[in-house]
């Protein structure tokens, strides 16, 4: 814990935005820069959010934590851990420097995502410096809040293109009482069938990944349900470090030098024939792919499966192109919220 480094730099950040608006110059928002591989290159003056850091409030029995955008994710997780709680969406923090703001801006969720929800699902409120140079608050620290438009959740996964996040309030949950990981020697095809079947039953799965040889499962809940599920499913015990390694992309699979792709597909999608090495996560809903095949080919496969593909290796077009009408409204939203286009222009799409 680095409490002594807590610092409220909102005024300085606001000044930087005002300056950018005045000079009509773009800003490149950066936290720990741990997601540099994802998204397009964006040119602009560096705005480092890490000066604005620290946990503002944490009420464990209220299940809410509020932190400044530049707070290291590791610091947030340590505070939660000390109170027996967690961010259920398990955001990856492969680099030590990942920040809370970057977590929200990238909107990436870990292995638990299909069962407990995404980063966006845990957002309760945000503070944002807007493209009009105002520091505003949306949402708050309460679980239910339907006053006005849900600007806070819109920020999740927007890669800083709609405004500068300065503070986030997140819902947190107690850690499960028991956790047990197992590996089953079954084929990928059979694993996907079984996962679809278990999904319809109250089996306490909280992570499921297939590496081509084995199905890795994490069972979490009370002792009774975990033990009963283990008795039923059998399998070899698995070191729980597997999940952290998967989430941080430290498994051998990720060492392959070819570009990394993420295919997001409906959970019950069967085996996909992909041009490269693949690793199944999210119980089938997320397929990691190492491939140097043409982006068009990979995207066609994802689209065919009713999903989409994103390239995690500094591609020219990292995200799946949007339908023309949808792109138009997204541009329109960007123009309304950031009329001068100063926030991370082009980070997601050339047109946004």
């Amino acid at each position, binding site marked *: 814990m680095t409490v002594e480094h807590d610092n409220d730099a909102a005024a300085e950040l606001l000044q930087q935005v005002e300056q950018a608006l005045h000079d009509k110059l773009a800003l490149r928002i950066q936290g720990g820069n741990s997601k540099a591989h994802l998204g397009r290159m964006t040119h602009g003056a560096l705005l480092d959010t890490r000066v604005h850091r620290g946990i503002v409030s944490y009420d464990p029995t209220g299940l809410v934590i509020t932190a400044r955008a530049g707070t290291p994710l590791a610091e947030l997780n340590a505070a939660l851990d000390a109170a027996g709680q967690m961010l259920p969406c398990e955001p990856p923090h492969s680099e030590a420097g990942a920040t809370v703001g970057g977590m929200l801006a990238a909107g990436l969720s870990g292995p638990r995502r299909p069962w407990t929800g995404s980063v966006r699902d845990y957002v309760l409120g945000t503070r944002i410096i807007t493209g009009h140079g105002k520091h505003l608050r949306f949402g708050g620290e309460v679980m239910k809040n339907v006053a006005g438009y849900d600007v806070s959740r819109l920020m999740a996964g927007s890669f800083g293109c709609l405004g500068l996040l300065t503070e986030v309030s997140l819902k947190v949950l107690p850690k499960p009482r028991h956790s047990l990981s197992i590996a089953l020697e079954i084929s990928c095809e059979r694993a996907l069938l079984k996962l679809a079947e278990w999904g319809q039953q109250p089996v306490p799965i909280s992570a499921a990944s297939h590496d081509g040889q084995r199905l890795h499962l994490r069972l979490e809940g009370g002792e009774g349900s975990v033990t009963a599920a283990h008795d039923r499913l059998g399998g070899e015990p698995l070191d729980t470090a597997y999940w952290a390694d998967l989430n941080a992309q430290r498994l051998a699979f990720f060492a392959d030098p070819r570009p990394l792709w993420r295919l997001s597909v409906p959970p*019950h999608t069967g085996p996909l024939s992909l041009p490269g090495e693949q690793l199944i996560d999210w119980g089938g809903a997320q397929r990691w792919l190492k491939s140097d095949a043409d982006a068009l080919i990979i995207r066609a496969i994802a689209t065919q499966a009713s999903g989409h593909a994103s390239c995690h290796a500094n591609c020219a077009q990292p995200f799946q192109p949007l339908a023309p009408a949808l792109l138009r409204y997204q541009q329109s939203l960007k123009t309304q919220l950031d009329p001068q286009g100063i926030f991370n222009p082009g980070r997601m799409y050339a047109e946004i």
Partner: protein
Amino acid sequence: MNILYDERVDGVLPATDKPALLSALRAQMPELEILHSEEALKPYECDGLSAYRTTPMLVVLPRELEQVVTILRICHQQRVPVVPRGAGTGLSGGALPLEKGVLLVMARFNRILEINPAGRFARVQPGVRNLAISQAAAPHGLYYAPDPSSQIACSIGGNVAENAGGVHCLKYGLTVHNLLKIEMLTVEGECLTLGSDALDSPGFDLLALFTGSEGMLGVITEVTVKLLPKPQTAKVLLAAFDSVEKAGRAVADIIAAGIIPGGLEMMDNLAIRAAEDFIHAGYPIDAEAILLCELDGVEADVDDDCQRVRQVLQHAGATELRQAKDEAERVRFWAGRKNAFPAVGRLSPDYYCMDGTIPRRELPGVLQAIADLSIEYDLRVANVFHAGDGNMHPLILFDANQPGELDRAEALGGKILELCVKVGGSITGEHGVGREKINQMCAQFSSDELTLFHAVKAAFDPGGLLNPGKNIPTLHRCAEFGAMHVHHGQLPFPDLERF
């Protein structure tokens, strides 16, 4: 300050030519059912907020998607405001019609298009009732989690528009957490797909933005919801307390023990007595507060958690502790809570239901302040509280036939909502802003924040033709409202002209 649409503060609406609109609609869609006579329009003059009524210019009841597209195109062309409506059960007047507007009723789109057990989703038309989805999924052991108390009648399109909640939100989330995809039409009649069959989709998360947008950004034409496996078992504990503070502390203790109940409800003495009188649920009528705690999941875990919660409640000073011994008793315990509104309705000719949320730690102070306000305004208030997620439903008892009582009830309600904002909460947890809380929006948000909301609206509906006047107040309305309610010793919009 009156909440009915007032062009002086809510913005001038375009002048409309009813005969021209009618003939254009008829010419292009001879099959479309249109209501335009006074007696036919009458049933549509309000939604669940029945204290406020406005007769719409026209009501259209399309059955086909192409008809909705054409209606929107014609209205856009002729600059006629459109108010979308589902089942009309909303409590905040989100579907309150406009005299100069068309009421677009989507209730006839009531087909379940697909139940997919392997994919655990249901694809339905917007007029399908909330409960009908769970009923259709039940043969597969699945259900749709959000359960607003109107679930027998409310439709899923309205649930999406309002981001509806229910009694199980702490564990299972709101509507926004249980959606995969919506198909919608823009104000110009253009089709957009938001979200996808996968767990995420590229671009900005417009699905999150649209959920709870109260029909201001588009018209929902299809909804794909997530389905969950039904919990194996559910058990309910009932604990009585001799003070509301102790009950509030017990809630925090349950969470601190690492337990997230499926449902966690609190009622105060007036609500307990009303419910007991009506339902005979077996509630202890001398208790100052009761807690209902439902634990659901796999049998072994639920038994384990019940043990833990019993201990927590005993330590917290429960004067009585009961566990429903069978399904019949469980249903009876819940029946008292689920019928709390009509039960309170028996105590008084009218009641006004509030929907504020607060950080749970503020509960004792807020309840004391409500009790003080109740004395000040000379109106009784019964409190029903989704204790797990901080959503309060104070019920203000009044008699509309007594001169001045409705005004007093509304003023008291407004004070309660402002109190919620003051302690860091919100003026609405699940019922929506609609027209009902349009003035209190000025207390929750600054003029810059409201301006940003208007910018969001402009990105999708620059002409302001979709459900104008709902959800986000104009700065003029806030200036007028602020002139009457000085906020934190300052007028909220000192730089605005007043008239």
